[in-house]
């Protein structure tokens, strides 16, 4: 049972949102219920704290006269519910949304300029959320998560080619199929964390064995499936050949 929360300071709009959501839930038979509908961010946060677990949050971007605005509220909710679904509601047609998506992993936004548009948006959000949840259940991918400064990045483990220790202390570069980024960490900790699938082939390289394309024994290089190259130390040659 997913809990749905609504935070909207205009009472009339809030009422319409609640009615619309209840209708959608009933018609489509979703396993959801409206936990709280309020104009006060503080109340929402209290309720979320008391009721931990995944939720759906419809938040007004432009909360007027309250202690926190929509973004700040989203940030607090994200802290309490890392996997919840956050959908923003705004009066402005062209919301600058990337910041929300990037920092809060917000799903989408709905425009409240007309009743039809808002109802359509609410219905669509619920169906997208349901689709996502079904997709998640079918998915058996493992993810590697790491905190990079103030955001957490998730990369599917089978898409990681290797980790490389760069010249700066404690700075590791992740080389993936679609992601390349630096973060602070240590290869040794990663080795322990990731286990069998990754082999420490060199002082500076931790390689995903399943992504190795071929070995260059003379040059002591490993060529990965995406064309990138890593080095390996002499004493790892045996272990590498064994794995291949």
């Amino acid at each position, binding site marked *: 049972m997913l809990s749905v929360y609504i935070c909207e300071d205009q009472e009339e709009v809030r009422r319409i949102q609640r009615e619309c959501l209840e209708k959608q839930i009933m018609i489509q038979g979703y396993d959801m219920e409206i936990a709280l509908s309020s104009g006060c961010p503080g109340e929402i946060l209290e309720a979320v704290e008391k009721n931990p677990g995944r939720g759906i949050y419809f938040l007004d971007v432009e909360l007027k006269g309250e202690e926190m605005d929509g973004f700040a509220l989203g940030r607090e909710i994200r802290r309490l519910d890392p996997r919840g679904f956050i959908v923003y509601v705004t009066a402005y047609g062209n919301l600058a949304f990337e910041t929300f998506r990037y920092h809060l992993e917000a799903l989408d936004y709905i425009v409240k300029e007309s009743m039809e548009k808002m109802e359509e948006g609410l219905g669509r959000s619920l169906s997208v959320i349901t689709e996502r949840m079904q997709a998640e259940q079918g998915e058996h991918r493992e993810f590697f998560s790491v905190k*990079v400064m103030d955001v957490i990045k998730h990369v599917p483990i089978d898409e990681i080619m290797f980790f490389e220790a760069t010249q700066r202390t404690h700075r590791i570069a992740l080389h993936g199929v*679609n992601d*390349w*980024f630096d973060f602070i960490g240590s290869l040794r900790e990663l080795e322990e964390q990731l286990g069998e699938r990754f082999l420490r082939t060199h002082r500076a390289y931790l390689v995903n064995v399943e992504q190795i394309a071929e070995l260059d024994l003379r040059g002591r290089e490993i060529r990965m499936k995406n064309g990138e190259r890593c080095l390996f130390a002499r004493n790892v040659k045996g272990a590498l050949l064994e794995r291949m």
Partner: protein
Amino acid sequence: MSFLSVFVHNTVSIVVSLVYVVFVGMAVLKILPANPRKYGLCRIALATVCKVSVILLATVFYKKGLLAYIFNNILLAYALLIGNALCVCLVFREKFRRCWGITLFTQIIVEYSGTLSFLIFTDRPLVLNNPEERRVYMLVNYGVGPGVFFLLLYLLYKMKVGDAYRRWLEHGEFWSRGMICLSAYPILIYGATDLLMGSGVSRNVSHGITLLMLAAALVLLHHMGMEEWQRREFASQQIILQQQDVYIKTLEGMQEEMRRFRHDYKNMMSGLYLTAREGELAKTHCFIQEMTEDFDSQIGDRIRQMGQLGNVCMTEVKGLLLTKLAQMQRDGTVCELEVMHPFRGTRCRTTDLCRCLGILIDNAMEEVRGREDARVHIMISRQEGYTTFRVKNRLYHTVDVHEIWQQGYSTKGADRGLGLASYRKILADYEDVLTATAVQEGYFIQEFKVREQNG
């Protein structure tokens, strides 16, 4: 005095001079990092070998009485300077030209303070074999001398000569006239002293003249540093003025559009009033919708964009974005700029920030130019003590991300593609900056994050 005692004495004074150089490099000139990275053992070994050979050279010269000849004095002075510069270069992994600059600077001040101390406290050259005189020498050399040295350093620090010198080192041509003159100072000093002593001028006067020459050198340095600084300030002010000009023109343009819209708006409102009065609800609905859309497409977007731009409080970045926005408008590319919270500044040097951001935006613009629905998305976000700069654009061809960093790589032809290699090089220098690249759902995303000092 035995070879060993001279050797020991020389070791002490040369090591002290190295310490001085490092101190000046760190504290006054602020070129050397205060927390150096790990030292390589072989580098330290090499530096030690270097030092010991210089010390040996000095000792041999002294023992063989070669220092009576002025040519040997000059040679030794240069050996000392080169030795120190090499050591600093090896241990701190800094460019040799900068180490040479630091060493020269330090040595001039050391000479100055040494000469000054001896001038004040003694009245004739000391004979070191005499223990009494040796004590005086030790006192002045190791007590008063350093005292005067640090006093001078403090004065120079306060007068910002250190900063001026550093700027001059960083921006000026290495083999400029000034640097050549400065590098020749041992020749000048020894040459002048010898000449003056030879022609019977008293020791005090000749030393006085030496001091004057050294002082002149320092004043020259300060002046040149200031000149360079002022030139740059002026240039950057010109750019700022130009950009403000563009900004004002854009705002004026928008104001004009608003005025026109208000005029149209009044007509639309009267039409709306009539429709509503005749009870045509559906038509009224439609009318209102059209009006809102019209407004949004005509100036609503521009207002929002300017509003986001208004959140950029750093003039240089604002100027950069304005330039890029103008260019994108000419190209027919839509630019989505997001600066949700006011952005006042970041830890990175402004020049580096503008350059890196510029490179990313240029690449994005290049990729989408001429395409249908060309869009470039730029986000600047400051949250919890971290600033994120993110540029996103649609990808129209496959990209081998690990190759794009190489100098000379470009999908647009030869002679292009130095951008990303420079971008990486610039940001690699920063401890608190992390970069990320991603390809997500057909979009190419480049970002760099800065950890700010106070959270």
